[in-house]
């Protein structure tokens, strides 16, 4: 065939459309994400882990442009390594969030990525920070990505202060499942990371193990 056309998705920007969520519970944090990476209308990776470690007990959740988000996470991972050697102990979650925020703010015109930073440190326990468009704010929970719009009502209704670790994990899984059902740019499997003073635990929940709802 003469001059076969290149598939359209090869020239589309790669985005992690996404649903991400992080919530603080009594003694730690739980982060959750979906696993879909899209380029235009194609799904180019259906099993991407969007929960990226910044340090042993600090993770971030990636959304927006895949390249931008990954780069920010890698740069901050390096900066935190240096910082923690300088201070001689584990970094604070707020420090990690500040480093992310500094990059997001400085390059806010050129980049389009939103990272939620969450972790545990000895001073303030579990914390969740949102860094959208270069702001820095601590919140009891944060949702982000294209799928988050569909679940604002659900998280507003269901969130309660002082949930246990298991309740928080269930809350995150339910929220992700609902968003993945409605958002075309979210889907695949659910990744969960739980961080508390004892350590960091990563978990994957496969598609058919996710909660289902009345119309499924």
């Amino acid at each position, binding site marked *: 065939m003469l001059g076969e056309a290149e598939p359209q998705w090869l020239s589309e920007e790669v985005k992690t459309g996404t649903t991400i969520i992080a919530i603080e519970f009594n003694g730690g944090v739980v982060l959750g994400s979906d696993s879909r990476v899209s380029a235009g209308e194609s799904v180019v990776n259906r099993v991407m882990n969007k929960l990226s470690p910044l340090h042993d007990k600090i993770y971030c959740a990636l959304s927006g442009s895949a390249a931008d988000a990954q780069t920010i996470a890698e740069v901050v991972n390096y900066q935190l390594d240096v910082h923690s050697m300088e201070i001689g102990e584990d970094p604070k979650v707020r420090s990690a969030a500040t480093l992310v925020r500094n990059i997001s703010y400085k390059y806010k015109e050129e980049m389009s990525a939103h990272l939620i930073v969450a972790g545990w440190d000895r001073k303030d326990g579990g914390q969740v920070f949102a860094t959208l468009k270069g702001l820095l704010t601590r919140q009891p929970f944060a949702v982000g990505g294209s799928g988050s719009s569909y679940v604002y009502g659900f998280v507003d*209704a269901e969130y309660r202060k002082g949930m246990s670790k298991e309740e928080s994990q269930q809350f995150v899984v339910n929220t992700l499942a*609902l968003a993945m*059902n409605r958002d075309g740019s979210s889907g695949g499997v659910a990744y969960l990371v739980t961080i508390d003073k004892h350590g960091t635990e990563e978990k994957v929940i496969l598609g058919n193990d996710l909660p289902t709802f009345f119309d499924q």
Partner: protein
Amino acid sequence: ESVQNSQTNVMLHTKLNDTSMEYVSSKTINKVIQVHDQIFCCIAGSLADAQAVTKAAKSHLSFHSVQMESPPLVIAAASVLKELCYKNKEELQAGFITAGWDRKKGPQVYVVSLGGMLISQSVTIGGSGSTFIYGYVDAKYKPDMTREECQQFATNALALAMGRDNVSGGVVHLVVITEKGVEHVVVPGDKLPRFHDE
């Protein structure tokens, strides 16, 4: 002035058990239009287009019911709207939720979307604020709720949407349509359910 989906319009319609149905609208402009005794219609999109279409549908339906010598079916009302939307899809920008009770199938909800698709659903939401409550509705809706449960579910969903959508707010209008008739319930802003951050 044509206002596209930026009105304070959150509509929710749920189907209860066999004898009653409920339909909710929250807003400052009236977007709940009665097209027949036990059939109401909720509009979204360009207000001017929607009003023109429902006006035409209303007169069409009343003529139809005289010819048939009985109240129109809910699907008939929805079909009339659908025909108008589909035949004029290039010029119009309006979507509808049609809900009501008829003697043949009891309570029903139909959605006519922008291009003229007509489908039946047990629960449906629309308007600018609706995106925020898809998750809540998916999680909390159960088929065959009682009337009180349904009213509470609808009020909660609307309150949550109003809390997040900057162009939704004010008062919640509930219209409950049953075999016996139609009841209008109003929930003012200060009586709405509150959630963790309020």
